[in-house]
């Protein structure tokens, strides 16, 4: 796990180091992200930049707040590409979002296994 995947210092800042709360907020980010991805796929398929942009923004905000910086950065790139109507970059950024999300899921699982969350 790298700092980029999950900034533990940031997470502890907002949860006060409460392990139970750490796990809860990461789980909520992951669940909301799954839902957002489910809505992003059809939005991107029909090139609906407005809906896609709102979903990317939501992903970015929630992940940045808990310290999931890689996911937040990828979501930010996606949001900007959609704002610019740059569908090539948007497609690449969406793949990065999926990859960051998969990594975050792994990180969350390993933290849980280690009793860190």
């Amino acid at each position, binding site marked *: 796990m790298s700092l980029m995947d999950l900034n533990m210092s*940031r997470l502890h*800042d*907002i*949860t*006060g180091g*409460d392990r139970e*709360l750490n796990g*809860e*907020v*990461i789980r*909520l*980010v992951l*669940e*909301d992200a799954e839902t957002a991805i489910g809505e992003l796929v059809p939005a991107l398929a029909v090139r609906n930049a407005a809906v896609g942009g*709102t979903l990317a*923004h*939501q992903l*970015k*905000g*929630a992940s*940045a*707040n*808990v*310290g999931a910086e890689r996911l*937040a950065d990828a979501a930010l790139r996606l949001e900007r590409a959609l704002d610019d109507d740059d569908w090539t970059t948007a497609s690449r950024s969406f793949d990065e979002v999926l990859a960051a999300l998969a990594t975050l899921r792994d990180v969350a699982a390993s933290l849980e296994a280690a009793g860190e969350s």
Partner: protein
Amino acid sequence: MIVGLVDDARANLRIYEHVLSRIAGTRTVSFTSSEDALDWSAYSEPDLLIVDYRMPAPDGIEFIQRYRAMRPQSETPIIMITGDHDREVRNRALESGATDFLHKPTDPVELHARARNLLALHESRRKLRAHAASLEEEVARAVADIAAREEETIHQLMRAAEFRDDSTGQHIVRMGHYAAAMAEALGLSAEEQRNMLLATPMHDIGKVAIPDSILLKPGRLDPQEMEIMRRHAQAGYDILKGSRSKLLQLAAEIALGHHEKFDGSGYPYGLKGEAIALSARICAISDVFDALTTKRPYKDAWSTDEALIEIRSLSGTSFDPMLVALFLKIRDTILAIKARFSDNVNGVAVLQ
């Protein structure tokens, strides 16, 4: 204190709840849907709202606009949380009624401090408003208390005067109401109408200064006795004058002028026309009409029509023609008062 949280990201809501749980006495209510939050706000007024900017419609700015429109009197502070540093977004939010901003990623220390300060400010304002309302209530109560005491004093004074006169308590009750009805028809203020209602019954208070041998004499008064009797107008004025109470000042004016006649043939000063106080001119008509329509030991009651014909015939001599016309115009009101306060009813109704 209640804090409403509105953000479509559940993790953010959970973080805000956690941060705000450290402010004593605070309860949070969270919404992922801004529309649901508006529905809730229709029934609950939070002490603070924390609203995300970018959400599925309505977004943060529209939410604030709709909230402020729904509760125009509300002083609930609203913090908008935005990842945007765009000045235009901030200006629009301020114009819509946002109180403060926070940036994402949220700094928990900053969120805690801003929320705590705004809640404290809101609470202080609420207490100040409650204090002002309570003071206002206290003043209103004190004013009402003074008015009630003033009315009670007048009532007691009138009861004392009644013991020395052969007219019934209902006479002064009706007179007060006739005078108040005329004041209303003249377009005088509610306070002036009330004062006429209460002051007119005191018009003959000066009779307390007249010896019983004259005041209660069954037959006609000789010229000398009449002269003494006429002193009651000045005596009433002397009793009532000099008060700081507007009501008693009016009563003094009425006592002095209620036997003056419009053509200058009255007493004590032979004043003419509008040199006679309006209140006294009103009282004169009320007094004569009631005296005519009431049975006395020395005469039967006149019919209403006969009394009104008499009042009309005295227009321009005894009475102000304008007030006579007004009195005849409100004939129905006058008759209703006459019926309501007939001599079978106890006189205490004067102050009701």
